[in-house]
């Protein structure tokens, strides 16, 4: 959690990450509002807002009286959305910094490949 962005958005993103990484399987139950609040030391209203955002996006669904569960197909939809944002969020800053340092596209591609082999 950082203080630069609304906490409820960060809560929603954290759950999305867990779904993408598979920590939270489809149909798995997500923590309750009070569990989120206690774990992140945040106001329960903030946690509720974060979870409601996921509900509105169809990422999790409410089962009345039981809790919140990851919607089937949520992972594929999240990945699709993240891929759409990949260029603006990651490539753009990379290109700006590369230009600043005089690294052209071919050299950049070479660096990416080398980094990938190392890791």
């Amino acid at each position, binding site marked *: 959690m950082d203080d630069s962005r609304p906490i409820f958005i960060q809560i929603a993103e954290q759950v999305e990450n867990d779904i993408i990484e598979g920590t939270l399987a489809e149909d798995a139950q997500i923590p309750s509002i009070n569990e989120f609040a206690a774990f992140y030391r945040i106001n329960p209203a903030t946690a509720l807002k974060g979870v409601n955002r996921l509900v509105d996006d169809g990422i999790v669904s409410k089962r009345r009286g039981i809790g919140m569960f990851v919607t089937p197909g949520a992972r594929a939809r999240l990945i699709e959305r993240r891929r759409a944002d990949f260029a*603006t969020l990651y490539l753009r800053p990379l290109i700006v910094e590369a230009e600043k340092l005089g690294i052209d596209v071919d050299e950049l591609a070479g660096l990416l490949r080398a980094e990938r082999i190392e890791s």
Partner: protein
Amino acid sequence: MTRTVVRASGLTKRYGTFTAVDAVDFTLEEHRIYGLLGRNGAGKTTIMQMLTGQLFPNDGELEVFGRTPAEHADVLRRMCFIAESQRYPEDFTPAHVFTSAPWFFENWDAAFAEQLMSDFRLPVKRRIKKLSRGQLSAVGVIVGLASRAELTFFDEPYLGLDAVARHVFYDRLLADYAEHPRTIVLSTHLIDEVSRLLEHVILIDQGRIILNRDADEVRGSATTVAGARAAVESFVADRAVIGQEALGGLASVTIDGRLDQRDRILAAELGLELAPVSLQQLIVHLTGTELDADSTEQEVAA
């Protein structure tokens, strides 16, 4: 539908020619945690003392649970006010305080109080006079939590409490609030520490409310832009500037208003650094003008 617990309009308190609280309007809604923030002498305690019937306003309307608080026992019984320095009778021990608390607070939970005493490692049989500053604060915090009053005020409750004890306070407050929702007003200087507990922020400066907003709206509502002066100036040209500093050809300007993805890309292309402004930094920006004046005066005096 949430219920309004406190309704203040034009609320004013004067001491002679000094206006401590200057015609403030606000409401407090049921079951929320509010941060009442501001510098020393801003008027926070005065407002809380009027709400709890300890001071009479000079002007304006004030309703707490639908009535004027002062001298209405039925209203006062539903509130708990923990002052920065609680005073207790001579020879009192914490045990005395906790034994008498149920006389004043109908929702008092003795088992919860017992639990908190051990969480804070409070020596309950020791005379209050002999307690350390932090232990004295713990007594107030325990009363404030275990009283479960519908409207609870914590006015700088943790003078002398160490970091561990403060986190115990935050954890117990959140857990108990989740189980027993109530309206809580936290007044504190440790803004960064509590900012995530707050649902709503009211910022007071020189007796006036200068910000009254949802905490999540405030977070990320300001950004500091730093880089070459010309680039910074062109980037902030049409925006609301709330603070600026310059060093040679470099400038650092804090602007109000959220940045979107396009702004971020533009900033990156101009070679500007964007840094988030925490609630505490924002408050320093919004209430800092006097601080500069004060320090200049002190320098002149020295």
